[in-house]
């Protein structure tokens, strides 16, 4: 005989058991800390909502990516060691920033020349919710039309969605999660994963190309008819917001976690 309900229940019990004992380190990258603390707050509230034990080690600062991408990876060495020391005691480290999570996971071991315990356990909040918690409900209600910003490192390093260049079965963890939000309409722009032109210090070293790319990207988001651009990287959103504001382009920006946690 088949007991579908029992199966669900069993899975849920198992999940609850694991979650109760899981300890999460919250990593709020430097620029989110200073510019978009509401994104950190939403992440914290959302993780608590799922019953997780969340800690925020206060000595954290930056993952080192700004220096690395600029060509000064060696200057990030101490930061990386600090990060590893600070976060290795947690079961998972969760960050509301795909690019920072990718940098930690894929670049930290090269910088220190040793395996980094914390790096291996660091995840972006989207993949954590999707792959580890496997959430099928989110608290947020967001009766708006949004355009998804598939940021490069989210797509091509972390695999949050299938890169448009590859012939693999299409998927999007971002759209999966947004699909759980009540009232939302989810769009994607034309050229759904073309770079917005931020690139960290690229935006100050090649300001003209960066601005041109940002302008095109914002206009493609606007063309979907969306009220908001949303994505897993506040850095891309910051860049596009700066460009949009300068040119008076009519669209708002919001981190995905703020939508998922709306109302908490």
């Amino acid at each position, binding site marked *: 005989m088949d007991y579908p309900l029992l199966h669900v229940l069993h899975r849920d019990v198992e999940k609850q058991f694991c979650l109760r004992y899981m300890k999460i380190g919250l990593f*709020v990258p430097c620029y989110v800390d*200073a510019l978009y603390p509401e994104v950190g707050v939403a992440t914290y509230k959302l993780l608590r909502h799922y019953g997780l034990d969340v800690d925020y080690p206060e000595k954290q600062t*930056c993952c080192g990516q700004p220096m690395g991408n600029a060509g000064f*990876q060696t200057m990030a060495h101490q930061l990386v060691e600090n990060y590893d020391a600070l976060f290795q005691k947690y079961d998972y480290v969760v960050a509301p920033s795909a690019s920072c999570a990718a940098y930690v996971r894929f670049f930290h071991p090269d910088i220190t020349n040793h395996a980094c315990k914390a790096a291996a356990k660091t995840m972006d909040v989207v993949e954590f919710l999707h792959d580890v918690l496997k959430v099928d409900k989110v608290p947020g209600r967001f009766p708006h039309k949004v355009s998804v910003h598939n940021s490069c490192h989210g797509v091509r390093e972390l695999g949050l969605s299938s890169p448009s260049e590859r012939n693999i079965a299409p998927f999007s963890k971002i759209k999966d999660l947004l699909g759980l939000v009540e009232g939302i309409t989810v769009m994607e722009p034309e050229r759904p994963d073309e770079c917005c032109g931020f*690139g960290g210090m690229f935006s100050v070293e090649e300001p003209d190309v960066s601005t041109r790319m*940002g302008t095109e990207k914002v206009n493609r988001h606007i063309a979907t008819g969306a009220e908001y651009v949303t994505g897993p990287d506040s850095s891309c959103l910051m860049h596009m917001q700066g460009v949009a*504001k300068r040119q008076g382009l009519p669209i708002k920006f919001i981190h995905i976690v703020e939508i998922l946690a709306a109302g908490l």
Partner: protein
Amino acid sequence: MSTKHSLAAEKFIQDSNRVTRHDQTFWSVRAKRDAQAHDLSEWEDLREAASQIKKHTVTHLADYLQKFEENATRNGVHVHWAKDAAEYNDIVMQILTEHQVHKVVKSKSMLTEECHLNEHLEKHGIEVVETDLGERILQMMKLAPSHIVMPAIHITREQVGHCFEEQIQSEKGNYDPTYLTRCARYHLRDNFMTAECGMTGANFGIAETGDVVVCTNEGNADMSTSVPKLHIVSMGLEKLIPNYEAMGVFHRLLARCGTGQATTVYTSHFRKPRPGGEMHIILVDNGRSSILGDEEHWQTLKCMRCGACMNTCPVYRRSGGYSYTYFIPGPIGINLGMLKDRNANYHNVSACTLCCSCDNVCPVKVDLSTQIYRWRQRLDSWGKANSMKKAMSKGMKLMFEHPALYGTALKMAPMANILPRWMTNVRMNAWAKGHEMPEFAKKSFHAQWKDLKKGGQK
């Protein structure tokens, strides 16, 4: 201290319509490539196979080259070895002199661009006629290619028309591409009939048989080699593949990646000289054997020059081929330029957002963006780092290594006076050129944490 690329890009971008045209042209090629890639269920297997075949071949290159030479020689082909551009140019000149050649018809070869062959031959009184339409247009206009597969795509039909009016007496004011292509056809046909030598590059060399494979859409390599009796092939060492089984893999990838076609129109396999003719293959090193020894960059030797990384590169599409200091632009050009001459070409290393799209289109999986990241790490030790970026990084190091200092910076009011300088560099005004400043939160996450924790534990 802006890079030459960023300065040239600034100029290029001033003509907004041109940028749009350039971007859309290459994006459409990328879109055609995507359609081809999604049409073949074994696409990713092909890429992986191609990458592994190239890794295998370049790490056994000495053996394969010897095998190739043996087989080609047995087929009656003369094989020459050139360690650098000078030796290569001399060998070509020597062959041409022996055959009393006055005019050479040439199909597109990036290697001859790399070695500046045309200038060398012209200096010695040889007439060199490029026969790929795009290359011929550029040659007549005295311009360099701006892309390795579509070299003249940045030239408008009106510009081509004006050039043809002046140089090959086309009808005044007729800018129809079909008409202009016809004019070039008749003009080039005359040259095919009178040249004494045809030169081609090589897309592939097959070690097992000694064959050279050349791919074109126009048939110009075939016209160049089926009328003149003398055929000279210029081939970079890395063009070798083991056998025809491998050739099947590369054939299916090359045109699909390069132009979004399932094949080039012509895929010609040269094994022996034609009746009564002579065939020479010049194997050119010009730095390639040293690249093999570079642990971080040896995989550039896998490249088969399809141009897909340029087409997908968002920076290339918006800055144009001439913004780069090396004759090969885009992601592969940034890397090859640095390997060739880092002092001349470090200017291109800034032309990358690290979006990694190039890594995903590359048919042989060259780790293009990782390599660009690595070059950036080395610039400082060569004194070529951007001083502004270095100062910013130093500032960040100081601040981020000291949580107390970072905490103070976060708390200081008004923070906007302290932090933006580190984070967005208002002082140099580069960010502010195209962006409004982000606004700093009144209370950072750090500052909110304790209250949040209290609330969250309830």
